């Protein structure tokens, strides 16, 4: 099924090298090629500090490729934009705006003054909290608001950089399920960075395991639950997938010690 769907993200031979203090070159991403079909939920896992976030930042437009091609919806990336919505790990809601005004920040910047946020607020489960300020919300609710804030821009792709990493286990499971429900309704293309194996196994249609820095794709795994509304944590196949991801991660992590 995925083979005939047009790719929305195309990455060809991407290399990213940072120049550190004193001009020392630090290769972060080495020759990554990747296609993401429209509507896929792609999870990227890898040892911490391997360059997962850099890959996402290239897609978001915060970092530029050193070499290689990166296209989203056929367009070369020239900088950050509302067509590629990012949900950050940190809380990036603006504390001086209510939930409602945070969500409408993007549309208002682009001159859409009259857009209604009611639907998207309902979609992320924040109805009734429109006029709360971020400091009045729990961590999970903040990330729901952060998600709503990019969804209202109708992005081509959703880029999520360990968005639930700072949440407690229970809120994390709740918001993961809410995210899958939302995906079942909207069918967005999602690139989701995480270091949580369980999370990757639960959310993904496809999982990419990156090597340690400089990152390249070491293994690609398809979820047996791909295309289904949600993975069954109790299913044996779920356990197998989790084991596979963990096993792929381990050699990379082991070398670091």
């Amino acid at each position, binding site marked *: 099924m995925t083979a005939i769907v047009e790719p929305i993200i195309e990455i060809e031979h991407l290399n990213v090298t940072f120049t550190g203090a004193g001009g020392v070159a630090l290769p972060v991403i080495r020759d990554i090629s990747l296609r993401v079909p429209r509507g896929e939920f792609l999870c990227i896992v890898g040892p911490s500090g391997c360059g997962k976030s850099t890959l996402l930042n290239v897609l*978001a*437009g*915060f970092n530029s490729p050193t070499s290689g091609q990166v296209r989203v919806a056929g367009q070369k990336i020239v*900088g*950050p*934009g*509302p067509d*590629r*919505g*990012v949900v*950050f790990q*940190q809380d*990036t809601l*603006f*504390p*001086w705006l209510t939930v409602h005004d945070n969500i409408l*920040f*993007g549309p208002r*910047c*682009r001159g859409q003054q009259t857009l209604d946020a009611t639907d998207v607020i309902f979609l992320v489960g924040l109805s009734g909290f429109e006029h*709360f*300020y971020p*400091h*009045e919300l729990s961590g999970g609710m903040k990330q729901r608001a952060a998600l709503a*804030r*990019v969804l209202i*821009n109708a992005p081509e792709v959703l880029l999520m950089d360990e968005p639930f990493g700072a949440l407690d286990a229970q809120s994390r499971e709740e918001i993961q399920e809410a995210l899958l429900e939302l995906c079942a309704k909207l069918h967005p293309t999602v690139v989701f960075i995480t270091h949580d194996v369980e999370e990757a196994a639960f959310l993904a249609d496809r999982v990419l395991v990156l090597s340690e820095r400089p990152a390249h794709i070491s293994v690609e795994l398809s979820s047996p639950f791909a295309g289904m509304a949600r993975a069954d944590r109790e299913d044996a196949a779920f356990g197998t997938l989790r084991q596979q991801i963990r096993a792929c991660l381990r050699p990379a992590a082991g070398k670091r010690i």
Partner: protein
Amino acid sequence: MQKSRNRGLIILLAAALPTLILIIWSVVSALRLVPEYLIPAPWTLAQAMFVLIFGGNTGNYQRLYSGTFHLHALATLGRVGTGFALAVLIGIPAGVASGRNNLVATAIDPLVQAFRAVPGIAWLPLAMLWFGVGNQLAIFLIGLAAFFPVYLNTLHGMRAVPEHWLEAARMLGASRWQVATRVLLPAAMPAIETGVRMALGVSCAYVVLGESNGVTYGLGALIMDSRNLGGATLMLVGMLCMALFGCALDWCLMRLLRFVPGHRPATRQPSAVNGARA
């Protein structure tokens, strides 16, 4: 019910120390333990204050000041307002530029720091040479002294804006100008507000210096002139007026700042959140 009782207790606690001081002061005055010319009685002070504000002919030196409060207050308000406005209008743009642009910071920050090392009072003789006595002198001294808190707090506020807020704004489609006006400025606003509030306090202090010589009207002039005329009573009345004047201005400023974009509502107590929202 619980809450209103707490509130009553808080007011009682806050009023306890001033009340105690007032009682001791009254006793000291009634028993004439300290001469009147050093510490006048509370009731003498109250009477002089009344005459200063509302007029009334009492025969002594007070005739000179009878009912002139509004003239003094207005003169001082004009000087404080002008000097403070200049400090804010120059300090905020300079602080914004320095805070977000390293070239600007390199160019102007050392000079600002050098000037800051000179106490404002030390400028008085030179400023008198340049401006003589009067409005210009006071406005210059206020503007100079009030500039620094505005500039420094704005600068630090701008530098402390988390980079990921700016990234988030650009990702949501904000232009450079929109990032500056809708994210940078509101994000730095608490620091800017602090600077502006401090500047108002400094302005009220420096107006006394600016009015210390050669002006007829002004709360500072009232305090300084009473050295020759009214003694401690008028001095204390002048100080009291200055205090009320400063508090009133600060209150007005706080009200005004509520309308500034980026102003944070005061963080509610957790209990208040539940009470108000649930």
